[in-house]
């Protein structure tokens, strides 16, 4: 029986209140204000801009190291230095090579890791601050609402359906059942972060994939309060080497914030061969390195989080405009994977989208014909400038670090061309090698003081969901989990999920997938890394998810 949904119409609908979505909203609101003030007719309204945010609060789902290049923020909010919550400017950039027992600092920090002029920030705090500016400009931000489904419209999108609320575990309406809204908009902007669920739908339906599919890494982060004097604020280090093998693409980070707070973590490309590799365990192991354990000694874990990040680069960016739709930020893979910088690119992409939408609204034409202006703007901006230079960077590491350094070195002196241009890449899950009956590794336990098991860590992510709701992780064929996947890959979901959501439980004669959806931290790793691509991450009831406040 078709559900009766309340219909609402907006000029612009932005799905996701992260740095990209909010930059789009704020820039567009500013453009509209100036336009109206100039006496132009017909007037446009900032109140017809809707932003949807699935988190409980603005910033609740924002996770990043983070080091921010301020150039985009400077354009968006010229006096940002006075009011933006930037924790500390970077004072020292170190590149470290870890072996099991020692660390070596590169005498000259390689340029990609040199962060002079940038700021160490809490992305969550920044987003919260931006949100206040956006609301002050009259834009409607709806917290605790997610985009569940796209309203497709021939070659493009006409809007979004928000998630149904008040359904019980079995999908039956409860007392407070409120069906999702049919939100139609002239332009819908997908700003869902890495591996957005609506973006995934759109890319598949309209075949927007570039020559390379989008590929991802996983970032696992902890925020610690440490003993005074251990690390100066603004000290920024990136580590390579132990405990990751030379075949793995990834590394650690350590950022010193003010008040003896430290952001640290590990990023690993989701393209590794061993399907039972455990990124969370690798991160915990990395913390036992003397450099890190010394830093954390006597300290206290404050918060934990995990999120995927789009590593694919320029050739993996999907076409980002359709009739009535634009893709911005991490959803569109706007990330410089060499420098690990995405915040300013996300913001710039949002601003360019805003300028595009502004033109489209003025000319009352929101078709792809007008919206392709977005792609042109990107090509003429520093987004292309920065990303073009590293367009083959990530792909160079396909065969390991050594190859990667050589190839990327060559790319460096050939403006990014290197030996082969474009370098192709495959989706990460294709890298898995079958387990061939090898025994499963022992699960990491943690000592409870320096290192933690996933359940303890996930508790510190503050994640919670309405308990009585349908499971938001849709696995299209559970039989595969019990049979093929168990034999061929040893059920990697148990290992790659940083939130202990997936577990294979023994039942009399078989094993069965058990999903603890309430632990989900919305990182999207499962959607990305499952070898059969049968896991679909969908939006749970709004408000659910992690609480990365202050992260």
């Amino acid at each position, binding site marked *: 029986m078709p559900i009766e949904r309340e219909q609402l119409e907006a000029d612009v609908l932005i799905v996701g209140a992260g740095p990209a979505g909010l930059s789009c909203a704020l820039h567009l609101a500013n453009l509209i204000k100036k336009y109206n003030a100039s006496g132009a007719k017909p007037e446009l309204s900032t109140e017809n801009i809707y932003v949807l945010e699935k988190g409980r609060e603005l910033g609740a789902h924002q996770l990043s190291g983070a080091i921010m290049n301020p150039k985009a923020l400077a354009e968006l909010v010229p006096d940002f230095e006075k009011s933006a919550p930037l924790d500390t400017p970077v004072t020292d950039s170190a590149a470290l090579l870890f072996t099991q027992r020692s660390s070596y600092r590169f005498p000259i920090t390689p340029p990609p890791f040199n962060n002079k002029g940038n700021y160490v920030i809490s992305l969550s705090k920044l987003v919260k601050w931006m949100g206040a500016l956006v609301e002050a400009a009259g834009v*409607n931000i709806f917290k605790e*609402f997610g985009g569940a489904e796209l309203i497709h419209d021939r070659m493009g999108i006409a809007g979004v359906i928000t998630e149904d609320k008040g359904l019980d575990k079995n999908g039956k309406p409860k007392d*407070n059942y409120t069906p999702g809204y049919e939100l139609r908009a002239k332009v819908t902007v997908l700003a869902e972060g890495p591996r957005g669920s609506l973006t995934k739908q759109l890319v598949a339906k309209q075949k927007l994939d570039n020559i390379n599919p989008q590929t991802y890494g996983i970032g696992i982060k902890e925020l610690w309060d440490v003993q005074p004097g251990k690390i100066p604020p603004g000290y920024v280090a990136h580590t390579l080497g132990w405990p990751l093998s030379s075949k793995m693409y990834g590394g650690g980070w350590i950022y010193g914030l003010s008040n003896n707070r430290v952001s640290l973590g590990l990023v690993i490309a989701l393209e590794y061969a061993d399907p039972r590799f455990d990124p969370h365990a690798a991160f915990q192991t990395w913390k036992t390195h003397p450099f890190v354990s010394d830093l954390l000694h006597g300290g206290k874990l404050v918060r934990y989080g995990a999120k995927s990040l789009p590593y694919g680069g320029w050739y993996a960016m999907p076409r980002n405009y359709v009739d009535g739709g634009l893709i911005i930020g991490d959803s569109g893979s706007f990330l410089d994977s060499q420098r690990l910088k995405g915040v300013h690119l996300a913001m710039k992409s949002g601003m360019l989208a805003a300028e595009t939408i502004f033109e489209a609204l003025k000319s009352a034409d929101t078709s792809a014909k007008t919206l392709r202006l977005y792609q042109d703007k990107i090509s003429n901006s520093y987004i292309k400038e920065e990303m073009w230079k590293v367009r083959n960077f990530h792909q160079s590491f396909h065969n390991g670090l050594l190859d990667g350094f050589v190839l990327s070195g060559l790319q460096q002196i050939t403006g990014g061309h290197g030996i082969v241009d474009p370098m192709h890449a495959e989706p990460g899950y294709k890298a898995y090698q079958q387990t061939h009956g090898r025994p499963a590794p022992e699960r990491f336990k943690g000592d409870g003081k320096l290192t933690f098991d996933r359940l303890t860590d996930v508790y*510190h992510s*503050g994640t919670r969901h309405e308990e009585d709701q349908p499971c938001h992780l849709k696995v299209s064929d559970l039989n595969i989990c019990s049979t093929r996947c168990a034999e061929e890959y040893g059920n990697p979901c148990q290992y790659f999920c940083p939130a202990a959501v997936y577990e294979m439980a023994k039942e009399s004669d078989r094993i069965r997938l058990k999903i603890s959806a309430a632990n989900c931290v919305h990182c999207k790793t499962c959607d990305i890394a499952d070898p059969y691509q049968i896991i679909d991450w969908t939006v749970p009831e709004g408000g659910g998810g992690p*609480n990365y*406040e202050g992260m």
Partner: protein
Amino acid sequence: MNIIVCIKQVPAKDAPLSITGNWIKESDIGFEMNEPDSYALEEALRLKEKHGGQVTVLSLGPERVKQTVKEALAKGADRGIHVADDNFAQLDPLGAAKVLAAAIGKEQFDLLLTGLQSDDHGFGQTGVLLAGLLNLPHATIIMQIDVQDGKMKLKRELEAGWFQRIECPLPAVLSIQSGINKVRYATLKGIMAAKKKEIATITRESLGVNVDPTQKIEKIYVPTKTKKTEFLTGTPKEAAAKLVEKLKFEARVI
């Protein structure tokens, strides 16, 4: 029916608590509507749907509590009153109730609702004290409200599975039991409409209430376990016997 609902904004349930003296560090944590109060609000909204009228929400605290008032407005409350007080966390139950009573002052209402207690202080006295200060009849731990002919028939919860019905005139003050209804979601239209609804701000000072405290929280702390775990050894039967003996004579819980 004109209904006033007192709502408290409390630290989010999962917020890491950083204790400083007799309160906690408020920076870097989230705040939310006190869950027991959300049931009171829901009850008020249902009564309004049934009998017509208006729902006013009242909240005491620093500027940030306006967010919680807005959430109540988004769910369907008609207007809000914010009593501004940066030092709210230090008020004792009687002081807080006196301030609320003064703010309610000249409001005309049929019913004043509160939740049972707050998730932070957990005093559980506000509703009862308000009734005393406003000289109104009251009842607590209310599960059901039936309004007919200007008075109410209430179902009140007692211990051990007992309940009682009470007849109560209007106007009155009721403390609502938690979990008695399924709290509604704010709708998109509700959120947008909330932007246009009035939130009156009164400062606590302007009310001229004497809030000299009758009690003081000297400090709060995480209770530490002073004992080490005592392991009881032997066969299961022996260990069980030892345990029961310990529970009876040492811990004295059975």
